[in-house]
């Protein structure tokens, strides 16, 4: 790990000013991603700005049925929160299926949506990786790519986004609240992460130094009936091969509103508008769910070792939709 300077922030304004004062500065919250990557020299900040003492850890229930998660709320705190579990089951489930109890005690909501890919080539500085060193190539495309993307990748990068939470947030129409040097803004989660294209080093719409202050879960028609399904190589403490967050508003047997999002398949948490369109207005039954699975995976393609993810995603989608849309 490189040597770095350390500063502790007590208010957002000076955290932003400090980030602006040093082009090599980075925020640290739970540290579970940034410290890990620093140990392997994947990232080498010259200054760490500790934001853990900023007053943005609260979890507030909103009068209209929504919930506002402070960016520093830990994954454990959010998963254990009764209103989150009741109003946004997929969000709570995605957290309980993530990492380990220890890591969830440390890791924050803001850090979670900002975490970097687990691609082994990104994490190994001896390998080519356009995300880590733009222009150096992508060793995964012709390498060991069992974990990699089947949709949304480019000639530059086929990594997958590792966050379970971010996939569930897509099913909840979550809004990311950000404070930057020119003020506050609210970014819908489905516009927060960006595809690699020719600039895989750019992963979100945030500008350097932007601070996530909260993630808001608005009350929506379908969020209460949502479900998160995670398929992985072992029963616990493992990232997803494929995951599905589904939320459905079913009335009189007909799907009125749907959100369908996938993890483990793309460089960003993947919202399937095609899958959603195949659901809305249709009867909530097995035929509709199978058609949605087909629509959601149309156009996906593997790189050899990860071809299995396409069939796996189809089955996982059907299972998740059946779970959440089962006539009660």
């Amino acid at each position, binding site marked *: 790990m490189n040597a770095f300077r350390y500063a502790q922030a007590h208010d957002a304004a000076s955290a932003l000013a400090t980030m602006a004062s040093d082009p090599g500065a980075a925020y640290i919250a739970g540290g579970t991603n940034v410290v*890990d990557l620093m140990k392997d020299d994947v990232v080498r900040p010259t200054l760490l700005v500790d934001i853990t003492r900023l007053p943005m850890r609260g979890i507030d229930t909103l009068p209209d049925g929504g919930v506002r998660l402070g960016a520093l709320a830990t994954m454990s705190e959010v998963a254990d929160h009764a209103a989150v579990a009741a109003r946004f089951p997929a969000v709570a489930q995605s957290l309980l299926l993530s990492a380990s109890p220890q890591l969830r005690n440390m890791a924050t909501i803001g850090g979670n949506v900002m975490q970097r890919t687990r691609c082994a080539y990104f994490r190994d500085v001896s390998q080519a990786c356009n995300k880590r060193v733009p222009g150096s190539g992508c060793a995964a495309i012709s390498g060991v790519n069992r974990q990699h993307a089947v949709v949304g990748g480019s000639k530059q990068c086929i990594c997958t986004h590792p966050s379970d939470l971010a996939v569930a947030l897509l099913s909840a129409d979550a809004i990311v609240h950000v404070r930057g040097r020119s003020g506050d803004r609210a970014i819908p989660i489905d516009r927060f992460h960006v595809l690699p294209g020719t600039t895989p080093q750019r992963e979100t719409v945030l500008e350097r130094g932007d601070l996530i202050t909260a993630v808001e879960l608005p009350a929506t028609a379908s969020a209460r009936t949502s479900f998160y399904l995670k398929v992985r190589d072992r029963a616990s403490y493992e990232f997803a091969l494929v995951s599905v967050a589904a939320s459905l508003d079913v009335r009189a047997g007909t799907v009125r509103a749907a959100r369908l999002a996938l993890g483990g398949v793309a460089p960003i948490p993947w919202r399937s508008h095609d899958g959603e369109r195949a659901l809305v207005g249709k009867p909530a039954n097995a035929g509709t769910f199978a058609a949605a699975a087909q629509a959601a995976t149309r156009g996906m393609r593997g790189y050899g070792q990860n071809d299995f993810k396409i069939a796996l995603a189809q089955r996982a989608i059907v299972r998740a939709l059946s779970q959440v849309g089962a006539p009660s």
Partner: protein
Amino acid sequence: MSVPRMTRRRFLRRAALPTIAASLGLGEPRLSAAAAAVASITVLPAQGPGAIPVALTVNGRVYELRIEPRVTLLDTLRERLALTGTKKGCDQGTCGACTVLVDGRRTNACLTLAVMVQGKAVTTIEGLADGNRLHPMQAAFIEHDGFQCGYCTPGQILSAVALLSEKRPTDEASVREWMSGNICRCGAYPNIVAAVRSVAGQNA
């Protein structure tokens, strides 16, 4: 404790002055109102990259050290405080051997910077027993033979203590899930689960 101490105020003053001056120097005419507002805000005083004063509270005792900001809690415990009960398995958050309690919450010491746990209470395996009386979880691991080589054991025990204080369900499947952050290469899982469940019964 032998380290010469610098008061917090003196440190802040020394560290902050040049950076404030630098940020004010930027505040010349053409800045927008928003940028000027930011420029007039204090750039935080930074410490390091060399050794800096860090006060840690471990097992109820305060240690005043000088360490670099990049040193982890795990390395500090083992290399500086000679508290080698906390183990280093993977050093990247994937095994749980380094589990300690920070303000009562189970935490991976390998991904924690020591400088960031100042003011918090750290509990390691060395701090669990009450004098010569083992903590009930330690006694249960012995009673149920919850280990073979013992390398994962301190982390397992602290994680198990936290599992109970978090009031997690203690049926077998739940104990396995809520202990899944602690890997045992020897595969002592059946006996670990039995040990944890026996203490849960005792508390119930």
